[in-house]
């Protein structure tokens, strides 16, 4: 059991978890955002073909600029913020830019470990791992892991979960 590092340090913070997710996650988020923004741009563009008031053109341009900035800038920041770690005792995940979010769940309380792969993720060879506990407030998501790394993580977590008796409540 590690003691809380209190000696000589009045100020504490949650340290960054050890691992980044796979760098391909940046591409994944870029494509995701680009698809959503693209849908909006196309929808407005179709209207512009028939009807072209000045304010709508301005709106289209503004959305386009916002879209480009978001697709270029946001995913790398998101990648830098989203980190995870799994020790012998617990799973630890950090994410979020404007609202930072850290989650810690002890392996002894983990109930299920799932993986999801959307079409974009399948194409990029990525997986999202969800670790759930017996409370809806206690779910952890590691988004954009390499597929093989995800399989290995799930196996390890599942083994640790099965080693714990009881129903983890």
């Amino acid at each position: 059991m590690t003691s809380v590092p209190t000696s000589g340090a009045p100020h504490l913070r949650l340290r960054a978890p050890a691992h980044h997710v796979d760098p391909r996650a940046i591409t994944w988020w870029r494509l995701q955002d680009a698809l959503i923004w693209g849908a909006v741009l196309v929808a407005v563009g179709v209207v512009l073909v028939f009807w072209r008031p000045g304010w709508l053109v301005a709106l289209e341009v503004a959305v386009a600029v916002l879209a480009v900035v978001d697709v270029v800038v946001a995913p790398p920041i998101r990648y830098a913020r989203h980190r995870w770690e799994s020790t012998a005792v617990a799973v630890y995940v950090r994410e979020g830019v404007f609202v930072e979010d850290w989650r810690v769940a002890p392996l002894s309380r983990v109930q299920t470990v799932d993986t999801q792969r959307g079409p974009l993720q399948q194409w990029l060879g990525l997986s999202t791992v969800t670790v759930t506990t017996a409370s809806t407030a206690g779910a952890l998501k590691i988004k954009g892991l390499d597929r093989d790394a995800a399989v290995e993580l799930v196996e390890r977590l599942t083994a640790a979960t099965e080693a714990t008796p009881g129903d983890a409540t």
Partner: protein
Amino acid sequence: MTVTGAPPVTDWRRLDRRSIWVEAVKPGGGLLLAGAVAVTFRGWDRVGWIEPTIGAVVVVGILVLSAWAWATTTYRVTATHVELRSGLLVRSARSVPRDRLRSVDLTVDVVHRVAGLAVVAIGTGRQGGESDDELKLESVSTAEAERLRSVLLVREAAPVGAPADHRAPLAEFGASWVRLAPLSLAGLVAIGVLAAALGQFRDAIDYEALWGSGPVRSAVAWAGGVAPPLLALLVIGGLLLLNTVLSTVLYVVSYGGFRLVRDDDRTLRLTYGLLTQRSVTIEEARIRGVRVDEPLLLRLGGGAKAKIVAAGLGVQDSEGNEKRDSDLLLPAVPVALAHRVTADVLGAASSPAAVALRRHPAAALRVLLLRWVPVSLLPAVGLAVPALLGVFPHWPWQLALALVPPAVAGAVLEFGNLGHALSGAFLVARSGSGVRRTAVVRRDGVIAWRFRRTVLQRRPRLLSVTAAVAAGKGAHTIAYADQDEVLRVAADAVPGLLAPFLEPDPAQA
């Protein structure tokens, strides 16, 4: 877990035959009531033969469906499982392992009582997913309900040498409780519900005749002669009086005869209610904590309510409806009693909900003001824009500014309520503005931590910590606490879990 106790039944049983009639009484009664209202307001002469015919067909239909439901529903208790088969067209079969059962909840309303029946809800505590949450038997005889209760929640023999007198009630309805009843707005809510129900019958009511009737006309004439401020005072006073009377009546009817006992088989049993009788049995091993709620008015009157934090209670049932009051521990009672019962239920020497809590930094007040005030300004801003454009009068947005002081008061109240503490085996978290909620959860019941911080919280070093618990709504938040302090508390609360993920903050050293 081994299942012992009374010998299990293995044959399939049906619900009580009388439930065919009982289940049909409520929809049928509603229909009769609607008919009675229609006749009262429209007179017999305007009722033809069509409405009664439709009514009769519907009543017969309800009876047939009810009988069919009875005929297709069977249940049994085996050595390991409780199974329920039901369904009119779509057959459903549910099977729940007995060691997953957390609570047995008997409800007897007036109709059921006359028939000698009870509705049994067996809580399993699964939350989310398709497999939640309770098995409901509507309805079985009272004797069968009692039998099920004792069979289902007895698993291990009581330990030898357990204190003999376990049946002295932890709390019992007293006259001093009723004193607190008027400090609730339940009466006003009831008035609102009644008004809405009357609105439902507006087609049936002849408003012109009502408006023209003697008492109404003289009341209006009288009100016209009274000064408006006095009239407002009279109306408010009248509503308050009505609320006092109705709240008290509702309180006594709902919670009269309240009794909380600890049974020998290590379960808590609550019984209460004069008309609809409720009897909830909860396995103590499943209790993860207690929440003490103090609505502002009640708190000023020296009262508090309490809820149980336990898996399978106070969550949604299989239809997604909030389970009413299934997590109730105490209705509005004197606060000292609430704390004594809290301590008793949690097995603590004194109530952890009553310990001195650590206050949160003043910066939290700024965050709260930033959350409350802009929202309260929204209506004023929305009304001011057309006013400035000259298409709308100015007084509405000026009036809307009146929302700001209550918002500031709300923020200040919420700030005053923030607090947390570690007390023995328990983590205490207090929050809420209008209602002060003090959650006391067992430290070993915390199954995950979640920490959150918005951009606004970063510089003043505020951190919100959520302890996930496999019970009730599942999350208890310590909001806007001092980062260094609350990280230490969280690390201490569950030893060995959080410490490896903490480090000194060099930027602040």
